[in-house]
Protein backbone atom coordinates (compact mmCIF):
# COMPACT_ATOMS: atom_id res chain seq x y z
CA UNK A 1 0.00 0.00 0.00
CA UNK A 2 1.40 3.38 -0.99
CA UNK A 3 1.56 6.28 1.37
CA UNK A 4 -1.16 7.97 -0.65
CA UNK A 5 -3.44 4.96 -0.40
CA UNK A 6 -2.75 4.77 3.31
CA UNK A 7 -3.57 8.43 3.76
CA UNK A 8 -6.88 8.20 1.88
CA UNK A 9 -8.01 4.77 3.00
CA UNK A 10 -6.79 4.18 6.51
CA UNK A 11 -6.31 7.53 8.18
CA UNK A 12 -9.88 8.81 7.79
CA UNK A 13 -11.24 5.52 9.06
CA UNK A 14 -8.92 5.64 11.98
CA UNK A 15 -9.81 9.24 12.79
CA UNK A 16 -13.49 8.33 12.48
CA UNK A 17 -12.94 5.50 14.91
CA UNK A 18 -11.13 7.84 17.28
CA UNK A 19 -13.88 10.44 17.08
CA UNK A 20 -16.52 7.71 17.53
CA UNK A 21 -14.72 6.48 20.58
CA UNK A 22 -14.59 10.04 21.93
CA UNK A 23 -18.31 10.44 21.25
CA UNK A 24 -19.12 7.18 23.01
CA UNK A 25 -17.02 8.25 25.97
CA UNK A 26 -18.72 11.63 26.05
CA UNK A 27 -22.15 10.04 26.00
CA UNK A 28 -21.20 7.64 28.74
CA UNK A 29 -19.83 10.48 30.84
CA UNK A 30 -22.93 12.51 30.08
CA UNK A 31 -25.25 9.75 31.27
CA UNK A 32 -23.23 9.29 34.44
CA UNK A 33 -23.37 13.01 35.09
CA UNK A 34 -27.12 13.02 34.55
CA UNK A 35 -27.61 10.21 37.07
CA UNK A 36 -25.53 12.09 39.63
CA UNK A 37 -27.44 15.35 39.17
CA UNK A 38 -30.75 13.49 39.29
CA UNK A 39 -29.78 11.74 42.52
CA UNK A 40 -28.48 14.94 44.11
CA UNK A 41 -31.52 17.01 43.14
CA UNK A 42 -33.98 14.35 44.29
CA UNK A 43 -32.10 14.00 47.57
CA UNK A 44 -32.45 17.76 48.00
CA UNK A 45 -36.20 17.71 47.30
CA UNK A 46 -36.90 14.69 49.49
CA UNK A 47 -34.69 16.11 52.26
CA UNK A 48 -36.58 19.41 52.20
CA UNK A 49 -39.91 17.53 52.24
CA UNK A 50 -38.79 15.64 55.34
CA UNK A 51 -37.70 18.90 56.99
CA UNK A 52 -41.13 20.42 56.31
CA UNK A 53 -42.85 17.42 57.80
CA UNK A 54 -40.69 17.26 60.91
CA UNK A 55 -40.79 21.04 61.49
CA UNK A 56 -44.55 21.19 60.75
CA UNK A 57 -43.90 24.16 58.53
CA UNK A 58 -45.86 26.36 57.96
CA UNK A 59 -49.00 24.91 59.62
CA UNK A 60 -48.59 23.50 63.08
CA UNK A 61 -51.81 21.54 62.69
CA UNK A 62 -50.45 19.70 59.67
CA UNK A 63 -48.48 16.90 61.22
CA UNK A 64 -48.79 13.51 59.56
CA UNK A 65 -46.58 11.07 61.37
CA UNK A 66 -43.15 10.75 59.79
CA UNK A 67 -43.14 7.01 60.40
CA UNK A 68 -46.73 6.29 59.38
CA UNK A 69 -46.86 8.70 56.45
CA UNK A 70 -43.34 9.51 55.28
CA UNK A 71 -43.19 11.98 52.40
CA UNK A 72 -46.83 12.91 52.89
CA UNK A 73 -45.91 16.38 51.65
CA UNK A 74 -45.06 14.98 48.22
CA UNK A 75 -48.50 13.41 47.99
CA UNK A 76 -50.46 16.57 48.73
CA UNK A 77 -52.48 18.81 46.42
CA UNK A 78 -53.29 17.10 43.12
CA UNK A 79 -51.63 13.91 44.33
CA UNK A 80 -54.67 13.28 46.50
CA UNK A 81 -57.00 13.72 43.55
CA UNK A 82 -55.05 11.17 41.52
CA UNK A 83 -55.17 8.76 44.44
CA UNK A 84 -58.93 9.17 44.67
CA UNK A 85 -59.32 8.40 40.97
CA UNK A 86 -57.18 5.30 41.39
CA UNK A 87 -59.26 4.23 44.35
CA UNK A 88 -62.78 5.34 43.46
CA UNK A 89 -62.84 6.18 39.76
CA UNK A 90 -64.22 9.34 38.21
CA UNK A 91 -67.20 11.31 39.50
CA UNK A 92 -68.32 14.72 38.32
CA UNK A 93 -69.99 17.14 40.75
CA UNK A 94 -71.25 20.17 38.91
CA UNK A 95 -69.97 23.52 40.19
CA UNK A 96 -67.56 21.96 42.64
CA UNK A 97 -64.03 20.61 42.65
CA UNK A 98 -64.22 17.14 41.15
CA UNK A 99 -61.80 14.64 39.72
CA UNK A 100 -62.55 14.54 35.94
CA UNK A 101 -60.19 17.54 35.80
CA UNK A 102 -57.32 15.07 36.17
CA UNK A 103 -56.03 12.77 33.45
CA UNK A 104 -56.04 9.01 33.93
CA UNK A 105 -52.57 7.57 33.27
CA UNK A 106 -51.10 8.12 36.74
CA UNK A 107 -54.20 6.72 38.50
CA UNK A 108 -54.04 3.68 36.21
CA UNK A 109 -50.40 3.12 37.15
CA UNK A 110 -51.21 3.65 40.83
CA UNK A 111 -53.97 1.06 40.56
CA UNK A 112 -51.50 -1.37 39.05
CA UNK A 113 -49.06 -0.71 41.90
CA UNK A 114 -51.83 -1.20 44.41
CA UNK A 115 -52.77 -4.49 42.79
CA UNK A 116 -49.25 -5.79 43.44
CA UNK A 117 -49.31 -4.61 47.03
CA UNK A 118 -47.90 -1.09 46.95
CA UNK A 119 -49.79 1.86 48.48
CA UNK A 120 -51.07 4.41 45.96
CA UNK A 121 -48.78 7.15 47.26
CA UNK A 122 -45.67 4.98 47.15
CA UNK A 123 -46.45 3.92 43.58
CA UNK A 124 -47.04 7.52 42.56
CA UNK A 125 -43.77 8.72 44.09
CA UNK A 126 -41.65 5.86 42.75
CA UNK A 127 -43.09 6.21 39.26
CA UNK A 128 -42.64 9.98 39.28
CA UNK A 129 -39.03 9.91 40.43
CA UNK A 130 -37.85 7.02 38.29
CA UNK A 131 -39.85 8.35 35.37
CA UNK A 132 -38.03 11.64 35.76
CA UNK A 133 -34.66 9.85 35.54
CA UNK A 134 -35.83 8.10 32.39
CA UNK A 135 -37.07 11.44 31.13
CA UNK A 136 -33.66 13.03 31.63
CA UNK A 137 -32.00 10.21 29.66
CA UNK A 138 -34.43 10.52 26.78
CA UNK A 139 -34.22 14.31 26.88
CA UNK A 140 -30.45 13.92 26.54
CA UNK A 141 -30.77 11.64 23.53
CA UNK A 142 -33.35 13.91 21.92
CA UNK A 143 -31.27 17.01 22.63
CA UNK A 144 -28.27 15.47 20.88
CA UNK A 145 -30.35 15.28 17.71
CA UNK A 146 -30.57 19.08 17.60
CA UNK A 147 -27.65 20.42 19.66
CA UNK A 148 -24.03 19.58 20.46
CA UNK A 149 -23.53 16.94 23.13
CA UNK A 150 -22.43 19.52 25.72
CA UNK A 151 -25.64 21.51 25.32
CA UNK A 152 -27.80 18.39 25.51
CA UNK A 153 -26.05 17.32 28.68
CA UNK A 154 -26.32 20.77 30.24
CA UNK A 155 -30.04 20.87 29.41
CA UNK A 156 -30.55 17.69 31.41
CA UNK A 157 -28.52 18.98 34.34
CA UNK A 158 -30.56 22.18 34.37
CA UNK A 159 -33.78 20.15 34.14
CA UNK A 160 -32.67 18.09 37.15
CA UNK A 161 -32.18 21.18 39.33
CA UNK A 162 -34.88 23.35 37.75
CA UNK A 163 -36.65 25.34 40.50
CA UNK A 164 -40.10 23.97 39.66
CA UNK A 165 -38.70 20.47 39.22
CA UNK A 166 -39.85 19.45 42.70
CA UNK A 167 -43.06 18.48 40.91
CA UNK A 168 -41.13 15.58 39.34
CA UNK A 169 -40.77 14.14 42.84
CA UNK A 170 -44.43 14.57 43.79
CA UNK A 171 -47.26 12.12 43.09
CA UNK A 172 -48.00 14.08 39.93
CA UNK A 173 -48.01 12.77 36.35
CA UNK A 174 -45.22 15.08 35.14
CA UNK A 175 -42.58 12.46 35.98
CA UNK A 176 -44.43 10.04 33.71
CA UNK A 177 -45.22 12.51 30.97
CA UNK A 178 -41.71 13.94 30.42
CA UNK A 179 -40.10 10.66 29.23
CA UNK A 180 -43.14 9.89 27.08
CA UNK A 181 -43.08 13.31 25.39
CA UNK A 182 -39.36 13.12 24.70
CA UNK A 183 -39.49 9.46 23.64
CA UNK A 184 -42.30 10.15 21.19
CA UNK A 185 -40.12 12.73 19.47
CA UNK A 186 -37.00 10.58 19.58
CA UNK A 187 -38.75 7.52 18.15
CA UNK A 188 -40.23 9.60 15.34
CA UNK A 189 -36.78 10.93 14.47
CA UNK A 190 -35.50 7.35 14.35
CA UNK A 191 -38.42 6.16 12.21
CA UNK A 192 -39.89 4.01 14.96
CA UNK A 193 -43.35 5.36 14.38
CA UNK A 194 -45.45 2.78 16.19
CA UNK A 195 -43.48 3.32 19.37
CA UNK A 196 -43.82 7.06 18.83
CA UNK A 197 -47.59 6.60 18.49
CA UNK A 198 -47.75 4.63 21.73
CA UNK A 199 -45.71 7.22 23.61
CA UNK A 200 -47.76 10.12 22.23
CA UNK A 201 -51.01 8.43 23.26
CA UNK A 202 -49.72 7.63 26.74
CA UNK A 203 -48.32 11.16 27.16
CA UNK A 204 -51.75 12.57 26.34
CA UNK A 205 -53.37 10.22 28.84
CA UNK A 206 -50.91 11.49 31.43
CA UNK A 207 -51.24 15.23 30.75
CA UNK A 208 -53.33 17.19 28.24
CA UNK A 209 -50.13 18.88 27.02
CA UNK A 210 -49.36 15.64 25.19
CA UNK A 211 -51.81 16.66 22.49
CA UNK A 212 -49.29 19.21 21.23
CA UNK A 213 -46.97 16.37 20.19
CA UNK A 214 -49.04 16.47 17.02
CA UNK A 215 -46.93 19.43 15.85
CA UNK A 216 -43.40 17.97 16.02
CA UNK A 217 -44.54 14.52 14.89
CA UNK A 218 -46.38 15.99 11.91
CA UNK A 219 -43.37 18.13 11.03
CA UNK A 220 -41.05 15.11 11.07
CA UNK A 221 -43.53 13.12 8.98
CA UNK A 222 -43.93 15.85 6.38
CA UNK A 223 -40.19 16.33 6.05
CA UNK A 224 -39.61 12.59 5.50
CA UNK A 225 -42.75 11.88 3.50
CA UNK A 226 -41.09 11.63 0.05
CA UNK A 227 -38.56 9.04 1.22
CA UNK A 228 -41.01 6.91 3.20
CA UNK A 229 -42.53 3.61 2.13
CA UNK A 230 -46.33 3.25 2.16
CA UNK A 231 -46.08 1.18 5.32
CA UNK A 232 -44.01 3.77 7.10
CA UNK A 233 -46.35 6.53 6.00
CA UNK A 234 -49.27 4.66 7.53
CA UNK A 235 -47.42 4.32 10.80
CA UNK A 236 -46.37 7.96 10.73
CA UNK A 237 -49.98 9.06 10.28
CA UNK A 238 -50.97 6.78 13.14
CA UNK A 239 -48.33 8.47 15.32
CA UNK A 240 -49.59 11.93 14.43
CA UNK A 241 -53.20 10.93 15.19
CA UNK A 242 -52.36 8.95 18.32
CA UNK A 243 -52.53 11.88 20.74
CA UNK A 244 -55.94 13.14 19.52
CA UNK A 245 -57.21 9.54 19.55
CA UNK A 246 -56.15 9.15 23.19
CA UNK A 247 -57.86 12.41 24.10
CA UNK A 248 -61.00 11.28 22.29
CA UNK A 249 -60.97 7.99 24.16
CA UNK A 250 -60.81 9.86 27.48
CA UNK A 251 -63.79 11.99 26.42
CA UNK A 252 -65.62 8.85 25.31
CA UNK A 253 -64.96 7.23 28.67
CA UNK A 254 -66.32 10.27 30.52
CA UNK A 255 -69.38 10.18 28.28
CA UNK A 256 -69.89 6.51 29.00
CA UNK A 257 -69.50 6.77 32.77
CA UNK A 258 -70.66 10.31 33.57
CA UNK A 259 -72.93 11.05 30.58
CA UNK A 260 -70.79 14.06 29.75
CA UNK A 261 -67.85 13.94 27.31
CA UNK A 262 -66.83 17.43 28.40
CA UNK A 263 -66.76 16.63 32.11
CA UNK A 264 -63.02 17.35 32.10
CA UNK A 265 -63.51 20.89 30.85
CA UNK A 266 -66.51 21.50 33.14
CA UNK A 267 -64.63 20.22 36.17
CA UNK A 268 -61.84 22.69 35.38
CA UNK A 269 -64.36 25.52 35.76
CA UNK A 270 -64.43 24.92 39.51
CA UNK A 271 -60.77 25.92 39.51
CA UNK A 272 -61.64 29.08 37.61
CA UNK A 273 -60.58 27.76 34.21
CA UNK A 274 -62.81 28.09 31.17
CA UNK A 275 -61.67 28.79 27.66
CA UNK A 276 -63.03 32.04 26.26
CA UNK A 277 -61.90 34.75 23.83
CA UNK A 278 -61.36 37.07 26.80
CA UNK A 279 -59.35 34.46 28.70
CA UNK A 280 -56.01 36.24 28.39
CA UNK A 281 -57.61 39.49 29.56
CA UNK A 282 -59.16 37.68 32.54
CA UNK A 283 -55.78 36.14 33.36
CA UNK A 284 -54.26 39.62 33.38
CA UNK A 285 -57.03 41.02 35.57
CA UNK A 286 -56.67 38.12 37.98
CA UNK A 287 -52.94 38.73 38.15
CA UNK A 288 -53.40 42.44 38.94
CA UNK A 289 -56.03 41.72 41.57
CA UNK A 290 -53.91 39.09 43.26
CA UNK A 291 -51.23 41.65 44.18
CA UNK A 292 -50.71 41.76 47.93
CA UNK A 293 -53.28 39.10 48.81
CA UNK A 294 -52.80 35.43 49.50
CA UNK A 295 -53.00 34.63 45.81
CA UNK A 296 -49.76 36.55 45.30
CA UNK A 297 -48.13 33.24 44.38
CA UNK A 298 -49.71 33.76 40.99
CA UNK A 299 -46.82 36.09 40.22
CA UNK A 300 -44.49 33.11 40.45
CA UNK A 301 -46.41 31.41 37.66
CA UNK A 302 -46.56 34.59 35.61
CA UNK A 303 -42.78 35.06 35.97
CA UNK A 304 -42.24 31.44 34.93
CA UNK A 305 -44.44 31.97 31.88
CA UNK A 306 -42.35 34.97 30.84
CA UNK A 307 -39.10 33.06 31.37
CA UNK A 308 -40.39 30.12 29.35
CA UNK A 309 -41.28 32.37 26.44
CA UNK A 310 -37.83 33.96 26.50
CA UNK A 311 -36.15 30.54 26.64
CA UNK A 312 -38.25 29.30 23.74
CA UNK A 313 -37.04 32.26 21.73
CA UNK A 314 -33.42 31.42 22.60
CA UNK A 315 -34.03 27.81 21.59
CA UNK A 316 -35.56 28.91 18.30
CA UNK A 317 -32.57 31.11 17.51
CA UNK A 318 -30.23 28.24 18.40
CA UNK A 319 -31.76 26.11 15.67
CA UNK A 320 -34.30 24.00 17.53
CA UNK A 321 -37.00 22.99 14.99
CA UNK A 322 -39.92 25.37 14.83
CA UNK A 323 -42.44 22.61 15.44
CA UNK A 324 -40.96 21.91 18.88
CA UNK A 325 -40.83 25.61 19.72
CA UNK A 326 -44.43 26.20 18.60
CA UNK A 327 -45.64 23.17 20.53
CA UNK A 328 -43.81 24.51 23.59
CA UNK A 329 -45.34 27.95 23.14
CA UNK A 330 -48.78 26.36 22.93
CA UNK A 331 -48.18 24.44 26.16
CA UNK A 332 -47.12 27.59 27.99
CA UNK A 333 -49.45 30.19 26.46
CA UNK A 334 -52.68 28.34 25.70
CA UNK A 335 -53.62 27.90 29.40
CA UNK A 336 -53.82 31.69 29.62
CA UNK A 337 -56.83 31.57 27.30
CA UNK A 338 -58.61 29.70 30.09
CA UNK A 339 -58.32 32.79 32.25
CA UNK A 340 -55.48 32.11 34.66
CA UNK A 341 -51.71 31.94 35.03
CA UNK A 342 -52.18 29.33 37.76
CA UNK A 343 -49.83 26.33 37.44
CA UNK A 344 -48.19 27.66 34.27
CA UNK A 345 -44.80 27.08 35.93
CA UNK A 346 -45.64 23.38 36.13
CA UNK A 347 -47.03 23.16 32.61
CA UNK A 348 -43.72 24.39 31.17
CA UNK A 349 -41.83 21.47 32.71
CA UNK A 350 -43.01 19.30 29.81
CA UNK A 351 -41.47 21.58 27.18
CA UNK A 352 -38.02 20.26 26.18
CA UNK A 353 -37.04 23.43 24.23
CA UNK A 354 -37.20 25.39 27.50
CA UNK A 355 -34.29 23.36 28.85
CA UNK A 356 -32.47 23.48 25.52
CA UNK A 357 -32.81 27.26 25.47
CA UNK A 358 -31.41 27.45 28.98
CA UNK A 359 -28.56 25.15 27.97
CA UNK A 360 -27.71 27.44 25.07
CA UNK A 361 -27.53 30.39 27.49
CA UNK A 362 -25.38 28.22 29.75
CA UNK A 363 -22.63 28.09 27.13
CA UNK A 364 -21.25 31.16 28.89
CA UNK A 365 -19.33 29.99 31.93
CA UNK A 366 -20.72 32.71 34.18
CA UNK A 367 -24.33 31.96 33.22
CA UNK A 368 -23.67 28.28 33.79
CA UNK A 369 -22.34 29.00 37.29
CA UNK A 370 -25.27 31.24 38.13
CA UNK A 371 -27.79 28.61 37.03
CA UNK A 372 -26.02 25.80 38.88
CA UNK A 373 -25.89 27.82 42.10
CA UNK A 374 -29.27 29.57 41.97
CA UNK A 375 -31.41 26.69 40.71
CA UNK A 376 -30.79 24.26 43.60
CA UNK A 377 -31.39 27.08 46.09
CA UNK A 378 -34.67 27.98 44.42
CA UNK A 379 -35.56 24.28 44.16
CA UNK A 380 -35.08 23.90 47.91
CA UNK A 381 -37.09 27.06 48.60
CA UNK A 382 -39.91 25.89 46.33
CA UNK A 383 -40.03 22.51 48.06
CA UNK A 384 -40.10 24.11 51.51
CA UNK A 385 -43.07 26.25 50.49
CA UNK A 386 -45.20 23.55 48.83
CA UNK A 387 -47.82 23.96 51.55
CA UNK A 388 -48.36 27.61 50.69
CA UNK A 389 -49.53 27.11 47.15
CA UNK A 390 -50.28 24.22 44.84
CA UNK A 391 -47.79 23.85 41.98
Amino acid at each position, binding site marked *: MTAEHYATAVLPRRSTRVSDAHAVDAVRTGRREIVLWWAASRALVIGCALVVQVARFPRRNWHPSLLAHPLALLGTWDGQWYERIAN*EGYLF*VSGRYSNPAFF*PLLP*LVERFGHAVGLPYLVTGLVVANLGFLAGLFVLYELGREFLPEGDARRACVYAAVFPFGYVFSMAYPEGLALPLVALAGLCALRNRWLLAATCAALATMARPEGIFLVLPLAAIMIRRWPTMT*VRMRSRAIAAVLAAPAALASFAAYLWWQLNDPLAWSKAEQAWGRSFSPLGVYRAGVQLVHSFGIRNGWLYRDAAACLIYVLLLRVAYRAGIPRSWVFAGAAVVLLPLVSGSFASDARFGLLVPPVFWGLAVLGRHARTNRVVLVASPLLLAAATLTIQFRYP
Partner: protein
Amino acid sequence: MSVFRALVVPLVAGTIMAAAGGAAAFGLLATLNPPSRADKLTAALIGRLDGMSGSRVLVTASGHRALPGDCMAGQRGSQIRDGSSTRLLLVGRKVRHVSGKRQLQRVVAAARSLAACPRFLANGLSARLFADRLTLLTTTRQSGRSVDVFAASSYRRLPFVQLVVNGKTLVPTEIRFVSRRLVRHSQLAALRSRTTGAAPVSSCPEPARTTLRAAYSERTTRDC
Protein backbone atom coordinates in the same frame (compact mmCIF):
# COMPACT_ATOMS: atom_id res chain seq x y z
CA MET B 1 -53.42 4.89 -8.83
CA SER B 2 -50.11 6.19 -7.53
CA VAL B 3 -51.85 8.98 -5.62
CA PHE B 4 -54.20 6.41 -4.14
CA ARG B 5 -51.29 4.27 -3.05
CA ALA B 6 -49.14 7.16 -1.90
CA LEU B 7 -51.76 9.10 0.03
CA VAL B 8 -55.11 7.39 0.51
CA VAL B 9 -53.83 3.99 1.61
CA PRO B 10 -51.50 5.41 4.28
CA LEU B 11 -54.18 7.82 5.45
CA VAL B 12 -56.80 5.11 5.87
CA ALA B 13 -54.38 2.63 7.39
CA GLY B 14 -52.93 5.25 9.74
CA THR B 15 -56.37 6.35 10.86
CA ILE B 16 -57.37 2.76 11.55
CA MET B 17 -54.22 2.20 13.56
CA ALA B 18 -54.79 5.40 15.57
CA ALA B 19 -58.40 4.36 16.21
CA ALA B 20 -57.17 0.99 17.41
CA GLY B 21 -54.81 2.80 19.76
CA GLY B 22 -57.71 4.91 21.01
CA ALA B 23 -59.75 1.77 21.60
CA ALA B 24 -56.88 0.27 23.55
CA ALA B 25 -56.71 3.46 25.65
CA PHE B 26 -60.45 3.18 26.28
CA GLY B 27 -59.95 -0.42 27.36
CA LEU B 28 -57.33 0.72 29.85
CA LEU B 29 -59.68 3.38 31.19
CA ALA B 30 -62.44 0.83 31.59
CA THR B 31 -60.34 -0.86 34.28
CA LEU B 32 -60.99 2.14 36.57
CA ASN B 33 -63.79 1.78 39.09
CA PRO B 34 -67.08 3.11 37.70
CA PRO B 35 -69.02 5.51 39.93
CA SER B 36 -71.58 3.67 42.03
CA ARG B 37 -75.25 4.60 42.17
CA ALA B 38 -74.60 6.09 45.60
CA ASP B 39 -71.82 8.26 44.15
CA LYS B 40 -74.08 9.50 41.37
CA LEU B 41 -76.92 10.16 43.79
CA THR B 42 -74.63 12.12 46.08
CA ALA B 43 -73.31 14.21 43.19
CA ALA B 44 -76.86 14.92 42.02
CA LEU B 45 -77.96 15.80 45.54
CA ILE B 46 -75.08 18.26 45.91
CA GLY B 47 -76.16 19.90 42.65
CA ARG B 48 -79.72 20.10 43.99
CA LEU B 49 -78.63 21.60 47.30
CA ASP B 50 -76.41 24.13 45.50
CA GLY B 51 -79.50 25.38 43.70
CA MET B 52 -81.35 26.19 46.92
CA SER B 53 -81.10 29.40 48.85
CA GLY B 54 -82.64 28.33 52.11
CA SER B 55 -84.64 25.82 54.08
CA ARG B 56 -87.54 25.75 56.47
CA VAL B 57 -87.67 23.09 59.13
CA LEU B 58 -89.78 21.86 62.00
CA VAL B 59 -87.58 20.51 64.76
CA THR B 60 -89.05 17.80 66.92
CA ALA B 61 -87.78 15.99 69.97
CA SER B 62 -89.61 13.44 72.04
CA GLY B 63 -91.46 15.04 74.94
CA HIS B 64 -91.08 18.57 73.59
CA ARG B 65 -93.26 20.71 71.39
CA ALA B 66 -92.18 21.12 67.78
CA LEU B 67 -90.27 24.30 66.96
CA PRO B 68 -90.11 25.88 63.53
CA GLY B 69 -86.83 27.23 62.21
CA ASP B 70 -85.21 28.29 59.01
CA CYS B 71 -81.92 28.99 57.31
CA MET B 72 -81.45 31.62 54.65
CA ALA B 73 -78.29 32.15 52.66
CA GLY B 74 -76.94 35.69 52.76
CA GLN B 75 -73.84 37.46 51.56
CA ARG B 76 -71.93 37.02 54.81
CA GLY B 77 -73.13 33.48 55.48
CA SER B 78 -76.30 31.56 56.26
CA GLN B 79 -78.61 33.01 58.89
CA ILE B 80 -80.26 30.48 61.16
CA ARG B 81 -83.42 31.09 63.23
CA ASP B 82 -84.39 28.33 65.61
CA GLY B 83 -87.97 29.41 66.36
CA SER B 84 -87.11 31.37 69.47
CA SER B 85 -85.42 34.77 69.38
CA THR B 86 -82.00 33.20 68.83
CA ARG B 87 -80.28 33.99 65.58
CA LEU B 88 -77.05 32.43 64.44
CA LEU B 89 -74.78 33.14 61.52
CA LEU B 90 -73.18 30.13 59.85
CA VAL B 91 -69.95 30.95 58.01
CA GLY B 92 -68.32 27.84 56.60
CA ARG B 93 -68.58 25.40 59.49
CA LYS B 94 -68.37 28.02 62.23
CA VAL B 95 -71.43 29.41 63.98
CA ARG B 96 -71.55 32.95 65.36
CA HIS B 97 -74.19 34.13 67.77
CA VAL B 98 -76.05 37.15 66.38
CA SER B 99 -78.91 37.79 68.79
CA GLY B 100 -81.14 36.18 71.40
CA LYS B 101 -80.39 33.85 74.23
CA ARG B 102 -76.93 32.30 74.31
CA GLN B 103 -76.99 28.52 74.05
CA LEU B 104 -74.73 25.71 75.05
CA GLN B 105 -72.21 24.66 72.44
CA ARG B 106 -73.87 21.33 71.81
CA VAL B 107 -77.24 23.01 71.38
CA VAL B 108 -75.70 25.43 68.87
CA ALA B 109 -74.14 22.48 67.04
CA ALA B 110 -77.54 20.81 66.93
CA ALA B 111 -79.19 23.99 65.69
CA ARG B 112 -76.55 24.30 62.97
CA SER B 113 -77.24 20.82 61.72
CA LEU B 114 -80.98 20.80 62.20
CA ALA B 115 -81.44 24.07 60.35
CA ALA B 116 -80.52 22.15 57.19
CA CYS B 117 -78.70 25.04 55.49
CA PRO B 118 -78.33 23.81 51.91
CA ARG B 119 -74.81 25.14 51.42
CA PHE B 120 -73.66 23.59 54.71
CA LEU B 121 -75.14 20.23 53.77
CA ALA B 122 -73.70 20.38 50.27
CA ASN B 123 -70.24 21.24 51.60
CA GLY B 124 -70.46 18.40 54.06
CA LEU B 125 -71.51 15.94 51.40
CA SER B 126 -68.86 17.19 49.03
CA ALA B 127 -66.09 16.90 51.60
CA ARG B 128 -67.16 13.39 52.50
CA LEU B 129 -68.20 12.40 49.06
CA PHE B 130 -65.86 9.47 48.87
CA ALA B 131 -65.67 8.65 52.56
CA ASP B 132 -69.32 8.29 53.42
CA ARG B 133 -71.72 8.06 50.52
CA LEU B 134 -75.47 8.00 50.49
CA THR B 135 -76.62 4.59 51.54
CA LEU B 136 -80.03 3.03 51.16
CA LEU B 137 -81.90 3.52 54.43
CA THR B 138 -85.26 2.03 53.67
CA THR B 139 -87.90 1.68 51.01
CA THR B 140 -91.24 3.27 51.71
CA ARG B 141 -94.42 4.03 49.83
CA GLN B 142 -95.46 7.50 48.77
CA SER B 143 -98.61 8.16 46.76
CA GLY B 144 -98.88 4.46 46.19
CA ARG B 145 -95.37 4.21 44.73
CA SER B 146 -92.36 2.53 46.17
CA VAL B 147 -89.60 5.09 46.91
CA ASP B 148 -86.09 4.47 48.12
CA VAL B 149 -84.99 6.59 51.04
CA PHE B 150 -81.27 7.25 51.28
CA ALA B 151 -79.24 8.63 54.15
CA ALA B 152 -75.80 10.19 54.49
CA SER B 153 -74.27 10.13 57.94
CA SER B 154 -71.72 12.73 58.87
CA TYR B 155 -69.77 10.71 61.42
CA ARG B 156 -69.72 7.13 62.53
CA ARG B 157 -69.46 8.15 66.18
CA LEU B 158 -71.71 10.37 68.29
CA PRO B 159 -72.74 13.04 67.70
CA PHE B 160 -73.75 12.31 64.15
CA VAL B 161 -76.02 13.94 61.66
CA GLN B 162 -78.07 11.91 59.25
CA LEU B 163 -79.54 13.49 56.16
CA VAL B 164 -82.49 11.57 54.76
CA VAL B 165 -83.20 11.92 51.08
CA ASN B 166 -86.01 10.83 48.83
CA GLY B 167 -84.22 8.61 46.35
CA LYS B 168 -86.61 9.40 43.53
CA THR B 169 -86.77 13.17 43.69
CA LEU B 170 -83.49 13.70 45.56
CA VAL B 171 -85.29 16.09 47.89
CA PRO B 172 -83.89 16.12 51.44
CA THR B 173 -86.77 15.29 53.74
CA GLU B 174 -85.36 14.95 57.20
CA ILE B 175 -82.31 15.53 59.33
CA ARG B 176 -81.56 13.55 62.43
CA PHE B 177 -79.14 14.88 65.01
CA VAL B 178 -78.07 12.28 67.54
CA SER B 179 -75.76 12.99 70.44
CA ARG B 180 -75.58 11.60 73.96
CA ARG B 181 -77.97 14.20 75.36
CA LEU B 182 -79.91 15.25 72.29
CA VAL B 183 -81.90 13.27 69.79
CA ARG B 184 -83.74 15.58 67.47
CA HIS B 185 -85.32 15.47 64.07
CA SER B 186 -85.93 18.14 61.50
CA GLN B 187 -88.67 17.70 58.99
CA LEU B 188 -87.73 19.71 55.94
CA ALA B 189 -90.05 21.66 53.71
CA ALA B 190 -90.23 24.75 51.55
CA LEU B 191 -86.73 24.41 50.16
CA ARG B 192 -86.59 27.21 47.69
CA SER B 193 -84.68 27.21 44.49
CA ARG B 194 -82.27 30.11 43.93
CA THR B 195 -83.52 30.50 40.43
CA THR B 196 -87.07 31.23 41.59
CA GLY B 197 -86.12 34.62 43.04
CA ALA B 198 -87.84 33.86 46.32
CA ALA B 199 -89.25 36.48 48.65
CA PRO B 200 -87.79 36.87 52.16
CA VAL B 201 -88.68 34.16 54.60
CA SER B 202 -90.64 36.50 56.89
CA SER B 203 -93.20 37.02 54.17
CA CYS B 204 -94.06 33.37 54.20
CA PRO B 205 -96.27 32.06 56.99
CA GLU B 206 -95.09 29.11 59.03
CA PRO B 207 -96.23 25.90 57.38
CA ALA B 208 -98.62 23.75 59.27
CA ARG B 209 -97.26 20.59 60.76
CA THR B 210 -99.71 18.41 58.96
CA THR B 211 -98.46 19.88 55.69
CA LEU B 212 -94.85 19.36 56.68
CA ARG B 213 -95.27 15.72 57.35
CA ALA B 214 -96.70 15.24 53.93
CA ALA B 215 -94.24 17.55 52.20
CA TYR B 216 -91.71 15.25 50.59
CA SER B 217 -91.41 17.18 47.38
CA GLU B 218 -89.59 20.42 46.75
CA ARG B 219 -91.77 23.50 47.04
CA THR B 220 -91.15 27.08 46.08
CA THR B 221 -92.33 30.20 47.91
CA ARG B 222 -95.45 30.19 45.77
CA ASP B 223 -96.55 27.20 47.81
CA CYS B 224 -96.68 29.49 50.82
